[in-house]
């Protein structure tokens, strides 16, 4: 337990840094769908010189920044129902066509949040299964089933310190075996056929520190020493 000293400190990546780290992996020319919350921030950090086209499932390809007061149009919103703009070269289409893009494997990358991720890449991010909750799924199940690459941005553990990366999700699944990579506040983990592989650690975070907070045995493929 050589990390006890860190327990009450702010260590690892901030929310902004997680988005920034993820953004490094968004390739030039990608078609990208960003979920609500931290994933939305990824767009700000895509490195200069890369041209990325953002899809929002309510019918727009080529989503731009938030509007100025003059640009604001309540008929131009994103999947989170926030006002957005459209870039030159954008296109509008109906929901049937929009989800044909998703279901038909045309979107390259989707970045989403998570409640739990399993060793096999199962994702739970829509419901805690609580009996009194109003169930609401939106487009999450379609996105994870249809988009080529699924990136997850999430705190490594819950607010109470419980592991979110688990042998099996206890919450209802969003999709089975769908996650490709996890960006947590502590590290970057790839989901591979041979299990979860830690490929990068946040500054001053050790492999053991991450392993302690993960309910699944990780392979260490990072360059940092243990």
């Amino acid at each position, binding site marked *: 337990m050589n990390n006890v000293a860190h327990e009450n400190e702010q260590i690892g990546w901030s929310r902004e840094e997680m988005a920034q780290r993820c953004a490094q992996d968004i390739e030039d020319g990608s078609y990208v769908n960003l979920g609500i919350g931290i994933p939305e921030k990824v767009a700000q950090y895509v490195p200069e010189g890369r041209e990325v086209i953002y899809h929002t499932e309510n019918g727009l390809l080529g989503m731009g920044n938030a509007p100025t007061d003059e640009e604001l149009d309540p008929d131009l*919103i994103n999947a989170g129902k926030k006002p957005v703009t459209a870039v030159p070269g954008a296109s509008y289409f*109906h*929901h049937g066509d929009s989800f044909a893009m998703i*279901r038909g494997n045309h979107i390259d990358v989707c970045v989403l949040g998570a409640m739990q991720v399993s060793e096999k890449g199962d994702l739970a991010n829509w419901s805690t299964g609580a009996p009194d909750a109003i169930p*609401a*799924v*939106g*487009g999450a199940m379609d996105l994870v089933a249809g988009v080529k690459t699924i990136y997850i941005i999430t705190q490594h553990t819950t607010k109470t310190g419980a592991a979110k990366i688990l042998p099996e999700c206890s919450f209802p699944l969003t999709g089975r075996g769908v996650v490709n990579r996890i960006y947590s506040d502590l590290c970057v983990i790839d989901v591979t056929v041979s299990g979860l592989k830690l490929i990068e650690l946040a500054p001053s975070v050790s492999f053991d520190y991450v392993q302690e907070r993960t309910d699944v045995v990780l392979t260490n493929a990072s360059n940092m020493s243990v």
Partner: protein
Amino acid sequence: MIDKRVTSCAAAVADIKDGDTVMIGGFGEAGSPIELIHALIDHGAKNLTVVNNNTGSGRVGLAALIENGQVAKMICSYPRTANSLVFPELYRSGKIELELVPQGTLAERIRAGGAGVPAFYTKTSVGTPLAEGKEQRNFDGEDYVMERGLKADFALIKAKQADRYGNLTFNKTARNFAPIMAMAANKTLVQSNEMVELGDIEPENVVTPGIFVNSIVEVQSPQQESKLVKEGVVYP
């Protein structure tokens, strides 16, 4: 002569009956045909099954229709929103039924209903609780769920421009579910910001061809749901 124009929202919704299935366009407030919904509240048809991505916000539009006790069942993907006051309470007290459908499956079911396809297969929801009780099938090594096409007695949608044949265009992301709902309903009722002459909409740019439209009412300055919600307006 073909002239699908009607003079009021009340006239447009007059034939909706108790127990009908009604698709209502819109994703949040964008594309929500609020004047037609309010006319449906005035009309009073009950025991409706309503198909919409959400359940409305505040106490106007779709939320007001629900609050007014006219909706027995919602078919939707996301029954919560920031200002979702009405649905959660009714749902928890068992006064309204909910069929929760992933958004893309909802869209494809509506499109299938309109295209004469009674059922199709999708990967969406495989391995999740929303696949439970549904037929599953493997094609080429992948698992899929069978989903049924969805049709409606009526669709209520909002357009930007319409001509007397019923050709429609939409404004930006307010298009969302409207074109496929227009296909899936026996009768499609449209509120349009503007009526134009035949040929004013370039034939290449027609989004919904008139064949999918039955009645059009011009509502030049539709109310904006979020503004009404902010002002605390309650309909009726």
